[in-house]
């Protein structure tokens, strides 16, 4: 008992000493005004900001992978309904996307649909038939629910291409910072999310009934549509 108390006292002493040393180190730094004069070159700053964009995309992909691995579909329904209830919204139910029902809320767009239950679709893998110059395949994540393929150019700009082919789904796409409008991809209706937060990121979603697709990139909407219109089934080698 006594030795346990001594251990706890020792731990407390360590913490107090550690805090004092860390504060002392901070005091050895010059004042904030001097620190803020530290120069970060323009190139370095641009690289750091690109890093932030890439970090956000990578973090989103990791989150998607975690969800599918843990198979929390039921929990996600409950969370999405709860989140929908918390927001103040004026839902505008649209049948604009033929094979899905779209509901636009204040902060996200919910798309619910069901793919045709065709066994032959199980083996279909899709890929872009057109990409802007300089983009090469960087990574691919495959899960039972969806596939995400990432392409990257030498400047670190990325194109994310996601597709899913099985069963029913509910997708929520964050629309804060985007203007949502209808578009058409090879006669299939879709939704175009045009970024208005200055990052230049746009995304496009459409479904054919057999498969659903989403492309996200820092590209003009027309370029995004061109990629979308040239999606095809991968040929087996």
């Amino acid at each position, binding site marked *: 008992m006594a030795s346990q108390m001594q251990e706890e006292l020792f731990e407390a002493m360590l913490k107090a000493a550690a805090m004092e*040393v*860390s504060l002392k180190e901070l005091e050895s730094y010059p004042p904030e005004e001097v620190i803020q004069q*530290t120069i970060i070159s323009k190139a*370095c700053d641009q690289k*750091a900001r690109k890093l*932030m964009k890439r970090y*956000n995309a990578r973090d989103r992909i990791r989150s998607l992978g975690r969800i599918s691995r843990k198979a929390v579909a039921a929990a996600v329904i409950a969370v999405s309904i709860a989140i929908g209830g918390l927001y103040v919204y004026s839902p505008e139910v649209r049948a604009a996307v033929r094979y899905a029902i779209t509901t636009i809320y204040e902060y996200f767009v919910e798309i619910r649909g069901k793919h045709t239950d065709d066994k032959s679709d199980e083996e279909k893998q899709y890929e872009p038939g057109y990409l802007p110059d300089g983009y090469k395949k960087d990574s691919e994540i495959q899960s039972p*629910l969806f596939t995400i393929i990432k392409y990257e150019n030498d400047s670190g700009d990325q194109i994310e291409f996601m597709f899913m082919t099985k*069963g029913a789904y509910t997708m929520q796409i964050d629309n804060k910072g985007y203007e949502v409008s209808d578009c058409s991809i090879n006669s299939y209706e879709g939704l175009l999310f045009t970024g208005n937060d200055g990052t230049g990121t746009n995304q496009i979603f459409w479904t054919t009934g057999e498969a659903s697709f989403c492309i996200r990139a820092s590209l003009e909407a027309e370029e995004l549509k061109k990629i979308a219109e040239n999606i095809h089934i991968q040929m087996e080698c």
Partner: protein
Amino acid sequence: MLILVFDTQEDKDQFITLYEKYGKYVMYTVNRYIKDEYMAEDLFQETLIILADHIRDIDFSNDIKVRNYVITITKNYCLNYLDKQRRSKETLAEDMEQLNHMADAPLDWVLQKEAHQKLCEAIEKLDTKYRTAFELKYVNDLDDDSIAKILGISRKNAQMRVYRAKLKLREVIMEAQHG
């Protein structure tokens, strides 16, 4: 079957906050250790990646804690880089026996200002790799797994570094106690 695609604005804002508020602390710290401009920029970028990877460990409500965390990680990264130039290796097993012995030794101390002062001095003199792990645990309240991931070492190695730091500090207390 369901898919939730959810863009966390909070995480996005935190990274921007981290960079805009503390980015220059990172660069200032890097410049303290690395004189080569190009290497400094590379290490700056790499440190940002490490900080971003563990952004959820950062308590943004405490400015001093965040600054300390940023400086500690940056310093460790720079010193690791300089250390690799000298290619020093770390062994795990050598202190195990001494560690076990010290853990059983009775600690019968009196809380004195002098003991606290000696502890502070001893922490400042700790080898950087032990001090970093120790500070991440006792200042930033991180667990062993988080410390291991941040430092790029195994969990066992992270635990060993903290234990070695505490071992050294116990010796200091015992010396202070027994004069």
